[in-house]
């Protein structure tokens, strides 16, 4: 779509409003470093019920060494797993802030709580980093922030990610894991982010650079039914929940229990919806290989 390419280079076409919160509540730019894991903390593995030490788990990329269960990975930790080094990462659009466009009850409070808990300002971190020595535009949804759901800021940051990658002619990698899908609290504006991001993906195609979509647990709803499904290559971590309608809603609708393995990565692979299932330890090499093939 070379015709439209120039149009979208200019910034700030979205509606900007003044932040409605007081100064003290403002989220801070998050530190671009994985949080230190305190010694001695342990978790029970939902896969094999074994007790795992978090430090060990972190060393194993948050994958259970016994059963291979893939735990959630925060955005910053994910970046450190995928990029050559976090030092190569330049974060984009840290200045965008979520507002409460519908005046949805309790939204500001919940946001503030999420921000305090996670150190993130929103559910996605975007920017440019180096993978295999070459620049790549990368976006990572963080499940711990509002289930990684997409509101106006997530949609805008992802859209700009694709726009800048198009300008710079560099590939895009997006790691999606948003159980919430669209952000209910922003109502119809969340739904519109599905259109906005999908259009950004398609326009990015003009770069002739690949967009690799990585689906992690869980990728559902409006996230799955937009940019996450539109990758030139779609990789999925093993055992991730992937689908549109939530399993409990499906269960209630059909009034019977779900078949085992329903809406897993393996189910999606069998049904032709993803290209391959990639274990976390193989994710970086696989991304590197695909990107290398595109540079050849």
């Amino acid at each position, binding site marked *: 779509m070379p015709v439209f390419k120039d149009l979208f280079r200019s910034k700030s076409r979205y509606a900007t409003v003044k932040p409605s919160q007081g100064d003290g509540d403002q989220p801070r730019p998050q530190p671009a470093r994985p949080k230190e894991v305190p010694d001695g903390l342990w978790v029970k593995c939902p896969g094999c019920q074994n007790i795992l030490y978090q430090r060990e788990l972190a060393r194993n990329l948050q994958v259970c060494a016994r059963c291979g269960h893939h735990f959630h990975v925060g955005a910053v930790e994910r970046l450190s797993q995928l990029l050559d080094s976090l030092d190569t990462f330049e974060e984009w659009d840290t200045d965008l*802030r979520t507002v409460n466009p519908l005046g949805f009850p309790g939204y500001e409070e919940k946001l503030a709580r999420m921000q305090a808990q996670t150190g993130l300002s929103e559910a996605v971190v975007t920017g440019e980093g180096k993978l295999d020595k070459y620049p790549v535009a990368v976006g990572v949804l963080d499940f711990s922030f509002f289930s990684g759901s997409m509101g106006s800021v997530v949609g805008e940051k992802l859209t700009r990610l694709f726009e800048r990658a198009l300008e710079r002619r560099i590939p895009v990698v997006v790691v999606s894991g948003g159980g919430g899908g669209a952000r209910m609290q922003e109502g119809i504006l969340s739904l*519109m982010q599905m*259109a*906005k991001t*999908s*259009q950004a993906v398609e326009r990015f195609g003009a770069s002739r650079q690949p967009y690799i979509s990585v689906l992690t647990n869980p990728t559902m709803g409006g996230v799955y039914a937009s940019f996450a499904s539109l990758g030139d290559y779609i990789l999925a971590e093993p055992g991730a929940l992937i689908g549109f*309608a*939530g399993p409990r809603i499906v269960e209630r*609708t059909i009034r019977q229990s779900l078949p085992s393995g329903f809406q897993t990565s393996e189910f999606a692979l069998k049904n032709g919806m993803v290209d391959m299932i990639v274990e976390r330890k193989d994710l970086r090499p696989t991304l590197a290989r695909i990107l290398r093939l595109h540079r050849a």
Partner: protein
Amino acid sequence: MVNGVFEWERPLIELENRIKELQAFTKEKGIDFSEELATLERKADRLRAEIFSNLTPWQRVQLARHPRRPTTLDYINMICTDFVELSGDRCVRDDEAMVGGLALLDGMPVTIIGPQKGRDTKENIRRNFGLPHPEGYRKALRLMQQAEKFGRPIVSLIDVVGAYPGIEAEQRGQGVAIAENIRRMSFLRVPIVCVITGEGGSGGALAIGVGDRVLMMENAWYSVISPEMCAEILWKDTGRAPDAAAVLKIGAQDLLELGVIDEVIPEPLGGAHRDREQAAQRLKEAVVRHLRELLPLSGDELIHRRLEKYRRMGRLAQETEERLQAVSESPRD
């Protein structure tokens, strides 16, 4: 609702029935009740205005779901001529929960599509209560791409509670189908006018809802989530759907203010089902007017404007450089 009558409109319906009875009596017996009738009519008018001019969001949702509200095929038959219904996605199945075809609208050939609810139980079963499977979205896409091939404008009439939460729908990738539709629809080189005629539920609506113009009937709703499901999430109580309908801002007027839709099509007082023909005529007038505005535009221009329109969607704030500076200089935690 009892016999298609909501509790809150019962006084009016009863009054209207009395007027009808009196009219029938007049005709039958030849007695003149014109004075009494006039009084009753005036009273009814007052009551109608009172009830219907101040509908709550939830009352509108109820009207949008009224069993006598015109369905997609009802509207097609009322606003078009020469409708030729086309079937199939050429891949899996013909999904009767989504209909579409070729027709004349005010002399213009158009491709017209939309989810189709059943008008009785038997039809509802055949049409899965108007809930399309992925093949329904793919069928719609096939017809829209055909429209593009022949340079025909597209009219999408939207009335769907949402995508179908079923095993096969997930199996056949409704997430992928919806995303693919959104993507393809965004880049079609022909005019697209979408109208939420009744329910506009989430991804199921958006899958056929990306357009140059998005219009909405006065009592339709359009939302990222149904009021029931929202109530379930917020309060673990679907019974509080009316409250959810209010906080979600799903009515036509709210969406107009949010910049998500372009125009509200007024309905006959009390809802489209109370005067289906008039509702259809208003729908037709609006659609034709927007199509005629769009027809002179080239494919490039249409796509350009369409993308610009969606590019603006969303509301957020941008920190100033100074503020960010100040914040990042303050000590951590």
